[in-house]
């Protein structure tokens, strides 16, 4: 029997595993998923918990239920990848030899890398919402917050779901408005980027949202430490806060560092079109674990899984790999008060207005707030469990399409060229 090992059963790993369980002849191949966590967490739901949502039961499923019956799941972590010898060293001391390996070990937050962020203030005045217990702790805290300065800080790029900080601010504005204390709350978004939106068209189309909602944006703020009641940047600026919501530094998995296969933040150098690891044989990488400038988002993992699924079969058949991944991402952006936007873009094309996925019809509107988009964002959870994770065919293409999109008004000749977006 040949072995296809998949490290990590998050969104990317689960989709690839389920796809390969069906695509590979099961008399010749064993497909093994390695993940120590007994459950699968629906991460898009985390954003809503701090503002009072209580649907954890619908956000968590036993891992066993998310994996195809022909898959073998080992509830163990990986300590190191020995890619020279094509062996995985496991946390329980066992070793697993593989023919092909897919690394989908994702990203994790590292609050301990910023001075003063953890310690006594952690989960008292300093919160995160990228973990289940972090989002739950913030849900306990917010009702007791009677007013003051709430600072949301992105410590360092890249982060998972680059639109999440903006969504958090929009939802915070709606939440405090509903409580009738919006005038007593100052909302501040401190980012290391030079704008809340890094694409010129997005900036032009979406900045009004921040302005209309009275959210102050502090740009090029590179956090050095959290001082208990203020953030200090490397260039000695300060941002005082009564409540700090931090999006801490993200890194890849610990075994990436141990194995010496990652960059400075343990993300793995990967070919941007074939998704083959750059410096290793027979290793594919997708999802948040990669070092590419595509967004770290579930939709991206899904689009990548089609390319990796195809390329795994090509590699097995000794055929050339398809350089087919174009950086495609597709994200709902919650804007508060029951509305959302939808953005669709890739490595080269910034988000454009139009309708999606059916040109001219939708039902979703690109780059425009609508209630249908919000319904889409909420309905997506069902699609996630029943369509996305099982790798069923969905009516969206992994390659970005220009159909149904409107051309931009001619850009000013000096406008910066498009690259991936926030």
């Amino acid at each position, binding site marked *: 029997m040949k072995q296809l090992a998949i490290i990590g059963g998050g969104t990317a790993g689960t989709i690839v595993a389920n796809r390969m369980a069906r695509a590979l002849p099961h008399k010749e191949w064993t497909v093994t998923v390695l993940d120590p966590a007994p459950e699968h967490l629906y991460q898009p739901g985390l954003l809503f918990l701090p503002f009072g949502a209580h649907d954890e039961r619908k956000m968590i499923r036993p891992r066993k239920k998310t994996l195809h019956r022909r898959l073998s799941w080992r509830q163990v972590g990986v300590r190191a990848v020995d890619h020279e010898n094509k062996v995985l060293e496991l946390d329980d001391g066992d070793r697993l030899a593989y023919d092909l390996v897919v690394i989908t070990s994702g990203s994790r937050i590292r609050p301990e890398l910023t001075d003063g962020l953890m310690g006594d203030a952690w989960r008292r005045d300093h919160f995160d919402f990228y973990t289940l217990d972090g989002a739950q702790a913030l849900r306990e805290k917010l009702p007791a917050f009677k007013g003051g300065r709430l600072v949301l800080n992105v410590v360092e*790029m890249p982060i998972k779901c680059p639109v999440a900080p903006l969504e958090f601010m929009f939802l915070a504005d709606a939440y405090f408005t509903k409580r009738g204390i919006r005038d007593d709350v100052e909302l501040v978004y401190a980012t290391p*980027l030079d704008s809340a939106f*890094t694409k010129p068209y997005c900036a032009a189309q979406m900045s009004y949202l921040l302005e209309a909602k009275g959210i102050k944006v502090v740009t090029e703020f590179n956090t*050095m430490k959290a001082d208990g009641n203020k953030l200090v940047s*490397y*260039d000695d600026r300060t941002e005082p806060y009564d409540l700090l919501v931090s999006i801490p530094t993200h890194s890849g998995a610990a075994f990436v560092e141990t194995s010496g296969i990652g960059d*400075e933040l343990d993300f793995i*150098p990967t070919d941007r079109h074939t998704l083959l690891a750059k410096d290793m044989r027979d290793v594919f990488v997708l999802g948040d674990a990669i070092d590419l*400038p595509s967004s770290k988002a579930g939709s991206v993992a899904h689009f990548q899984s089609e390319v990796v699924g195809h390329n795994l079969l090509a590699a097995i058949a000794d055929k050339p790999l398809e350089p087919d991944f174009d950086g495609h991402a597709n994200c709902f952006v919650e804007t508060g008060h029951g509305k959302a936007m939808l953005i669709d873009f890739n490595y080269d094309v910034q988000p454009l207005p139009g309708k999606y996925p059916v040109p001219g019809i939708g039902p979703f509107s690109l780059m425009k707030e609508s209630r249908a988009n919000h319904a889409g964002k909420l309905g997506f959870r069902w699609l996630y469990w029943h369509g996305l994770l099982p790798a069923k065919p969905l009516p969206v293409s992994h390659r970005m399409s220009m159909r149904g999109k409107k051309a931009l008004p001619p850009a000013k000749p000096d406008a910066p060229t498009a690259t991936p977006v*926030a």
Partner: protein
Amino acid sequence: MTLHTYAGTDIQTNDEGFMTDANQWTPSVGQAIASEIGLPLSPRHWEIINYAREDFAGAGKSPGLRRISKATKVPIKELYSLFPKGPGKLIARIAGLPKPKSCL
């Protein structure tokens, strides 16, 4: 796009001052860009500029601060005092590299 003459060579930059062709760079060009910015360069500065050049040649993209700091062992705080305000952008600009992307 703007055309400059740095160290006797015609060099094109974009509107933010980043060179459009990294291959045109020489240490004298780097020196000329730094003088234009008004930043005197010490050996410590050059250590970092040279690392950024080398890394770009291998990785194909401009290194971010964490990467520079990890490889050169120069603390991020010191990068800020060597290249005030935005060290990431300043290092890339003097080294003739594209503006570092913030990996979104």
